[in-house]
């Protein structure tokens, strides 16, 4: 019998499909759909919590920012007027610039000091645990408590800071730190670097202890110096840790409140008033809740943009080792 290969196919004859990669075989991708459903089911509780406690309040805050919401009494929809006033408000703009300045001043020293402390305590030598504890202790005690302690120590004539600096001949024993812009900013920046570098140390130290020792041994064989090993091995391997510590540090600086509220109350005048304190004053002193919320939304957007930019710029290309492997 001659079989006409080009003739019409008998649709009643079942066809054998070619083998497909495992996992996509069953009924036109239904496994993938099932996996998707399972994934959605697993994340839905978390998403519901985020929706209820983050997204809905955020959306409501956006609505409030479009009104003249007072502490009590009726409110009116004002559209974008709060935002328009915001960009023409010299006090708000000053608080933004001051926050940027403060962030710029403290971020670098926190990273450098934290890195130095991490290098100092990363090895398990006798006493390293004690130093780790001592360096991390300021972060544990908390910013508010330490701000109150510093407030007392910064008092002219009675505080320890003036007493020590006076003995060393570096300052007058009656220096009024908290009521002069430059002195107050300097004192707070030094204080915050001391406070926050312990956290950076912990983040970086964890990364350093995860760097394979063989890399350093190979570098030693090649005759690398200490600095060369730090620059060529440690720092590249800590890219993610450095990114994390920088993001935490920058966001923390943008949200700074306690230290300024306790030490200077934003003064003298509004010279040391960061954004969050401006929001606080507008909301809970002036009772302009709609206007304050507009400032808060602006802050959320700015922090989001800066964080996204940092994530992008400091991203760790996870594919890089594989690509390097293929090149080999």
């Amino acid at each position, binding site marked *: 019998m001659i079989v006409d290969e080009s003739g019409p196919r008998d649709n009643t004859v079942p066809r054998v499909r070619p083998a497909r990669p495992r996992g996509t075989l069953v009924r036109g991708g239904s496994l993938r759909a099932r996996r998707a459903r399972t994934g959605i089911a697993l994340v839905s509780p978390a998403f519901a919590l985020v929706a209820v406690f983050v997204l809905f309040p955020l959306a409501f805050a956006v609505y409030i920012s479009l009104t003249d919401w007072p502490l009590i009494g009726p409110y009116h929809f004002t559209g974008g007027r709060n935002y328009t006033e915001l960009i023409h408000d010299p006090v708000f703009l000053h608080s933004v610039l001051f926050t940027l300045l403060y962030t710029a001043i403290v971020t670098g020293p926190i990273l450098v000091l934290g890195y130095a402390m991490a290098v100092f305590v990363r090895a398990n030598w006798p006493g390293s645990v004690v130093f780790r504890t001592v360096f991390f202790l300021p972060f544990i005690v908390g910013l508010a408590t330490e701000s109150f302690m510093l407030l007392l120590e910064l008092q002219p004539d009675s505080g320890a800071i003036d007493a020590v600096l006076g003995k060393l001949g570096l300052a007058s024993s009656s220096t009024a730190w908290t009521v002069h812009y430059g002195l107050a900013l300097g004192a707070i920046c030094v204080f915050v670097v001391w406070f926050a570098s312990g956290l950076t140390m912990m983040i970086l130290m964890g990364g350093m202890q995860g760097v394979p020792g063989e890399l350093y041994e190979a570098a030693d064989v090649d005759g690398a110096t200490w600095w060369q090993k730090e620059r060529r091995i440690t720092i590249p391997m800590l890219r993610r840790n450095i990114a994390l510590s920088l993001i935490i540090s920058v966001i923390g600086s943008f949200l700074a409140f306690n230290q300024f509220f306790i030490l200077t109350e934003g*003064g003298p005048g509004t010279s040391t008033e960061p954004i969050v304190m401006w929001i606080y004053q507008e909301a809970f002193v002036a009772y302009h809740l709609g206007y304050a919320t507009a400032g808060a939304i602006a802050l959320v957007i700015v922090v989001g943009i800066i964080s996204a930019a940092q994530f992008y710029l400091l991203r760790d290309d996870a594919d890089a080792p594989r690509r390097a492997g293929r090149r080999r």
Partner: protein
Amino acid sequence: MNRRTLALLSAAALLSAAAAGCSSSGSSPAAVAASPGSANFGVNATGTVQFWARTVSKTLAQKLVSEFNATHSNLKVKLTLTSINDDTTSLATSIRAGDPPDVVGLNDIDMPTFTRNGSFLNLTKAIALLPYEKYLSPGHIGLATYNGQEYGVPYWADLSVLWYNKQLFSQAGLNPNDPPTTYAQILSDAQAINKLGNGIHGFTFAGDCEGCLGFTVQPGIWASGSYLTSGPIGNQTATISGNQALVQALTLYRDMWTEKLVPDNDRTDDGPTWGQDFVAGKIGIMPGGYGQIENLATPAELATEFADAPLPGADGGYSTFDGGDDFAIPAAAKNPSGAWEFITWVLQTQQQEQYPDLGATPIRTDLLTPSYSAAHPLDAVALKALGHGYAPVGLIYNQAFNVPQGPWFQMFTTAVYDGNMSLALQQGQSGFTQLLQQAAS
């Protein structure tokens, strides 16, 4: 679900709702029917009264509530303490939610924020029936009044007085029973005490605490019959430029500063340590709160070392800042009659006379009798000043006086520390005017 099940569930829901209604505060039919001024308002009320008080009055509130509950079987008061910085927002939130307390002890300076919105019950008729109505603190009543109607009644007073150290007065050759009654005497007494040396200063003030300065400096201005703002709420104007009483007050503090009659660290004293140098016996004269020193000093020190006097004006007279709290009943309170019964019980003489021992001053000037003065000589001074007391009525007090960014502190700093009086008055006039215009718009 069949019909029978549905009916059972419905019945259960109705029973639950009824039970919940019975157990909620203010369930008394009499309480619902009574209104301020009516015969049964505040009489034999039943149920529970939810009372919110600020933590600053914790000792007083707890004692009063405890005694009230011990002596009233059908009406109970449940106390909730609210944080100092959060009390207004908590109250506003509860009012917005339609579930406010039955009575609130609100910082009197915050009363206008609520009274102008109809948030509180109008108590004018009920207050008029009180036998001691005309003796109630005028400053507290002023802050509770809006458009001629009274929405609150005084709860307790936190008054500013002039503290002085009798022993230092004696050592400096001054008469310890003759406290200063003019600015000139304050200055000369401070100069005399300052000469004692050994770390002793003639005067002290919390130089970085704008609220403390508003509390202690303004009464001297009021004693001269002058004020920093005038007019009714919504149509107020600043009266800073050309205000001679203000200039005299700022000049007194400028002299204290330039003549070094105050410790250097006064410049950075933003409140938490205010008064400690006085209690340590290092200061001759200190304007401050009655309760402030009463709480810091020991009974022995109060009996032998320290004394107080009214805060004088430049050339005499005296006044005080009528601080403290007002009672108010939210308009949506569930048990207003019970709340008023509790309030009137607190205002009775027996309860009021306990105030000095609890760090507070009563709010009825008729309590100032010889026996009261003998029992509480230091508080008697504050109570005497109460009748001459005042507190600025308006919507801008916190913005103007209680933040370092406000025009009050800016004006004080420029005048006292920088020595530029004319610029200070300009800053004050423009700053107050701007805030008043914002509040009116």
